[in-house]
């Protein structure tokens, strides 16, 4: 499990470029920050009100006023800045984020995302996710390829209530990297320990395959 999450977030980290301003969703996406190479600088935004988010502080140095949107203790880097929620969402919705990384319950070949509600079961609420998907220049979905029960999460069409319509740009799982194009999904990379056949079996959505299919570890 940890290995899967590490593989996904390590791969996503490679999408980010020097100078990018990025919001990482709660849960697995936060791990992306651990894999940014030392020679580039990525500025992390936290929707509860700051840019320049740094890693968890050493034990005993946590500050209750300095937490990320998932209530985990974090730090502020030199050059960071705090602000209120109106400015935080002006940044998010206003196109000032280069990318956001979000988890998924379902994602589909039109770039739709569902991650905030399972009717009758789980209704955590959308928090900032709908604004992030609408506002960020690039929306990257970090998700296990299938549910715990082995059901595909990448579908021809989401059946759960949507978080965003047609906003997803890239889907990264432990098995594959898909780009969402106007013509559906394009399989760009597969994991070193899988095959196109396995990816096809575990993906409910149709997809085309890039001429030069790359392998990732």
């Amino acid at each position, binding site marked *: 499990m940890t290995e899967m999450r590490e593989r996904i977030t390590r791969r996503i980290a490679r999408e980010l470029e020097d100078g990018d301003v990025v919001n990482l969703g709660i849960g697995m996406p936060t791990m992306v920050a651990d894999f940014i190479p030392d020679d580039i600088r990525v500025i992390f935004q936290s929707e509860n009100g700051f840019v320049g988010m740094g890693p968890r502080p050493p034990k005993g140095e946590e500050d209750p006023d300095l937490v990320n949107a998932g*209530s985990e203790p974090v730090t502020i880097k030199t050059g960071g800045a705090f602000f209120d929620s109106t400015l935080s969402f002006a940044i998010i919705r206003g196109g000032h984020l280069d990318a956001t990384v979000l988890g998924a319950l379902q994602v589909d070949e039109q770039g739709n995302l569902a991650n905030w509600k399972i009717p009758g079961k789980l209704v955590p609420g959308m928090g900032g996710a709908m604004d992030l998907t609408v506002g960020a220049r690039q929306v990257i979905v970090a998700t296990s390829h299938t549910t715990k029960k082995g059901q595909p999460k990448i579908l021809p069409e989401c059946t759960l209530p949507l978080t965003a319509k047609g906003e997803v740009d890239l889907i990264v799982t432990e098995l594959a990297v898909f780009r969402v194009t106007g013509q559906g999904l394009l399989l760009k990379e597969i994991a070193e320990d899988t095959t196109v056949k396995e990816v096809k079996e575990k993906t409910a959505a149709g997809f085309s395959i890039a001429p030069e299919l790359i392998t990732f570890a």
Partner: protein
Amino acid sequence: MVKIVDKEQIKQLFANGQRLMIGGFIECGAPHRLIDLLLESGVRNLTLIGNDTGFDDQKSGQLVVERRLSRVIVSHIGTNKETGRQMNSGDLEVELIPQGTLVEQIRAGGAGLGGVLTPTGIGTPVAEGSRTLEVDGREYLLAKPLRADLALVKAWKADRDGNLLFRYAARNFNPVIAMAGDRVVVEAEEIVPTGEIDPNQVMTPGIFVDYILRNGEE
């Protein structure tokens, strides 16, 4: 004009059926001492407007756990299991709004706007029942202003004229709800003499504030 008042005076501001805005983001920056007074006052049937309903084992969450709320207008309830239970049993009305839309609705309420147009939620269940408008070829949802009877604000420092500073991520919804309450009540970690806060650095001007909870009684 700002009044610095004691606990009993704060409690007299509360009444059954009020519409409350409460600052904070999952407990961080929430006015825990004011919430304590709210719980002690015994008022019920409240509407809460804020980011979330806190943690069920921490202070803000007790408003739900102790069943003081009949309606919440928030962006997220996942950290308080009791909110989901009361929603499913029909005891609590839950209106979920995207966080960026919610904060703009509160700002509109405080800034005298009739609403804002947001692209957030178009094509999702959030758009159902909402008024939509097309502006220059793009579709938007109309998000209407929100106001409250009382806004409960947590500041880091307050001067005696009500000028406020917030600290780190504890700022969040606090400055915006301070604009949108008919009466605005502040708890501050420290109350400093007027003049101690640089007028360039004030985050919420004192003209928004009505009451500050006196410190040092606990």
